[in-house]
């Protein structure tokens, strides 16, 4: 009973928190709301007309939505890189960053689910997938595994920070015996979500570009580079705009994680390129299309070469201690690394899987305006969710938001 009262008060207080803020904050939220509304309008057109308003066809049947989904699963999984040192290895430095990381994971997962729903031809019959009411093709379909692990991870990432914040809100210390098992579980779970998402593609013998044992590990490496890179950028913004104190030491430690992951990712990229191009087979055609174009079709060339050069540049910058320890340079490197991996793990991965088609037909894919509108809308949704979560969390952590302290 008392807990319910505290919870009601927390909800009220957080509503109060998120509706009040500086002018910049209001402009930011208004902007996100506007983009979301545009996205919803685009989605309403898609619902009405069907997926024919997107650039997808029978030849390239997954596009921007699934690309973003794949990438964001990686961002969500990366929260673990902060959880592990803090809760399991007891490295205090990360403690403040960890709540931000978990908030980011929640936002990324919500975006993932939104992208999947946006990609569905029949969102009105999605209840067919709910175990019990519908038919859940478990364990045969990797998509059902993905539904399970994503929702499980979402639950973990909501419940752990909620428990900690709920205790802090009442001015009590959180009990490690309660949250440490959850934190340890989420470490394994994060690896699981990304591996399962990779298996979704890796298990298709029909698509040689994906049917590749390195796909899963490379997903993990790139995720652990892009995710913490985003966290560094977010922490930098939070440091500037709020009174939440984040030490340089914390950011530098996360930068170390990004560096190692980016280096491993680059090694795997080289291994992949070697396999595809040293002794090219019929199965290397998708890679040829991606990197050099096939029969004059070169739509992805500018994208992938941008991604590769940004990737290499960022990794080189991060590798040198002097450059990495300069925060301005670090932020730049993190930004370009994030963009590079978004391209590479986004449509640099999904689209070439379909090109050339099963019988060698090359039909290119370009997203339409409506598709881009929906995509931006979902990103805005993610940013909005994250802003709300972060603002409340920061207020509690800095001790400004306390039960009965009004």
């Amino acid at each position, binding site marked *: 009973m008392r807990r319910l009262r505290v919870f009601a008060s927390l909800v009220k207080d957080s509503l109060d928190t998120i509706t009040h803020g500086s002018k910049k904050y209001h402009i930011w939220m208004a902007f996100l709301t506007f983009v979301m509304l545009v996205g919803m309008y685009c989605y309403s057109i898609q619902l009405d007309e*069907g997926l024919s308003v997107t650039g997808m066809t029978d030849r390239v049947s997954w596009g921007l939505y699934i690309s973003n989904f794949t990438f964001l699963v990686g961002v969500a999984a990366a929260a673990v890189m902060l959880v592990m040192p803090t809760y399991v290895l007891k490295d205090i430095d990360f403690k403040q960053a960890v709540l931000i990381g978990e908030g980011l994971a929640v936002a990324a997962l919500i975006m993932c689910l939104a992208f999947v729903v946006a990609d569905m*031809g029949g969102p009105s*019959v999605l209840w067919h997938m709910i175990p019990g009411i519908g038919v859940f093709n478990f364990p045969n*379909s990797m998509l*059902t595994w993905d*539904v399970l692990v994503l929702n499980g991870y979402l639950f973990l990432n909501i419940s752990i920070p909620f428990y900690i914040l709920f205790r802090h809100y009442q001015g009590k210390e959180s009990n490690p015996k309660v949250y440490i098992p959850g934190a340890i579980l989420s470490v394994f779970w994060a690896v699981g979500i990304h591996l399962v998402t990779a298996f*979704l593609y890796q298990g298709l013998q*029909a698509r040689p570009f994906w049917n590749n044992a390195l796909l899963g590990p490379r997903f993990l490496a790139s995720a652990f580079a892009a995710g913490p890179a985003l966290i560094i950028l977010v922490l930098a913004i939070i440091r500037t705009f709020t009174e939440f104190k984040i030490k340089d030491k914390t950011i530098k430690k996360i930068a170390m994680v990004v560096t190692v992951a980016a280096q491993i990712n680059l090694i795997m990229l080289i291994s992949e390129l070697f396999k595809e191009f040293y002794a090219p087979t019929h199965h290397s055609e998708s890679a040829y299309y991606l990197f050099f174009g096939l029969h004059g079709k070169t739509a992805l060339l500018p994208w992938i070469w941008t991604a590769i050069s940004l990737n290499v540049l960022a990794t080189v910058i991060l590798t040198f201690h002097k450059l990495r320890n300069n925060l301005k340079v670090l932020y730049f490197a993190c930004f370009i690394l994030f963009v590079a991996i978004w391209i590479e793990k986004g449509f640099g991965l999904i689209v070439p899987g379909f090109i050339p088609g099963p019988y060698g037909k090359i039909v290119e894919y370009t997203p339409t305006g409506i598709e881009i509108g929906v995509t931006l809308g979902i990103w805005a949704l993610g940013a909005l969710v994250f802003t709300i979560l972060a603002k409340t969390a920061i207020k509690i952590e800095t001790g400004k938001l306390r039960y009965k302290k009004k």
Partner: protein
Amino acid sequence: MSNNNKKWFSLNLNSRKKQTSSTCGCGKTSGGCNSHTVSTQMSDEEFLEAAVDASIGEERKKDGFDQVFEVKMDRRTAFKQLTASLLIGAGAVSTSCSVVSGEETKEKAQIDWEEQFKGNYKLMSDEEKKGTVDRLVRSYQLRTGKTISMSSKNAEEDVLFGYAFNISKCQGYMDCVSACVEENNQDRNSQMQYIRIHEMKDGKGFNFNEADDNYYHEVPAEGHFYMGTQCFHCDNPPCVDVCPVQATWREDDGLVVIDYDWCVGCRYCMAACPYDGRRFNWSKPEVPEAEMNHNQHYLGNRMRKKGVMEKCTFCVQRSRAGKNPACVEACPTGARVFGNLLDPNSTIRWVLENKKVFRLKEDLGTEPKFWYYMD
């Protein structure tokens, strides 16, 4: 060659008891056989036609998903239906209670409701299958005034359908493609086609990369040969495994089918198919009422909705009624052979036993039931 010899393919065809009354026992080596009994399903069509025409003349042009959801109605009917649906939605009453006055409106709402929340066809009992088919037929009648016959016939015992394609005979006329589109009520706007005919250059072998599957010139073109592909109805279909809701499955007679009403439209099966056998309804499929094939099967050529998968079913509405698929019947050169693999006297078995047959991408382990051969 002995009937028990299975070296030409690894499907375990002879495991079951053989049956003599088969789909195609004519024994001809090529072309569609004419020895089938055509089961006519004429009902009191004319009577209904007149009756329904009188009541809802205008709505007859609707088809597809529209049958169910885009009914033209005046504001009063709309409100009635809305009220009715809301009341059901709240769980307060069922539509059969006299909330609204019009019998037909009530019936439509009832059908829509039951159709929206029905289960997966694969798991339905025979009565439930019949129930949904009756509802769909009635719904079509109410909307368009036309009577369709829709079958829910299950796979027969000791039948396993197989298909063979004679590369030497095919001249690329594409009669099979048109027959398929007409038979299976495919969307005319997007020009969806299940069959692709690949035009290949002589002397280059089976080089799909350089083949053209979208040609518009006189055939047979000099120095070319032709090869058709469609759904191969694999015995180990990757598309079936990946479906998250079991909306697609392999029937006992080997047909790989889709429950269009259960499909959620994720297109995972499309990514998993190595043979380009699946098609997606990117927008609402439309077939002019005059061109509609009214002889339908639940798993076959009934109208699809927007946002669901569809594919070749070896014309389940024909093959389970003892006929050849439309493509086999339409082929002017006799390049296409269809029949029961479990019947030792069938044409398809003769082809498999006497010709040098091969299948595409056998290394993937999908075990297609679609063979190619040459004279």
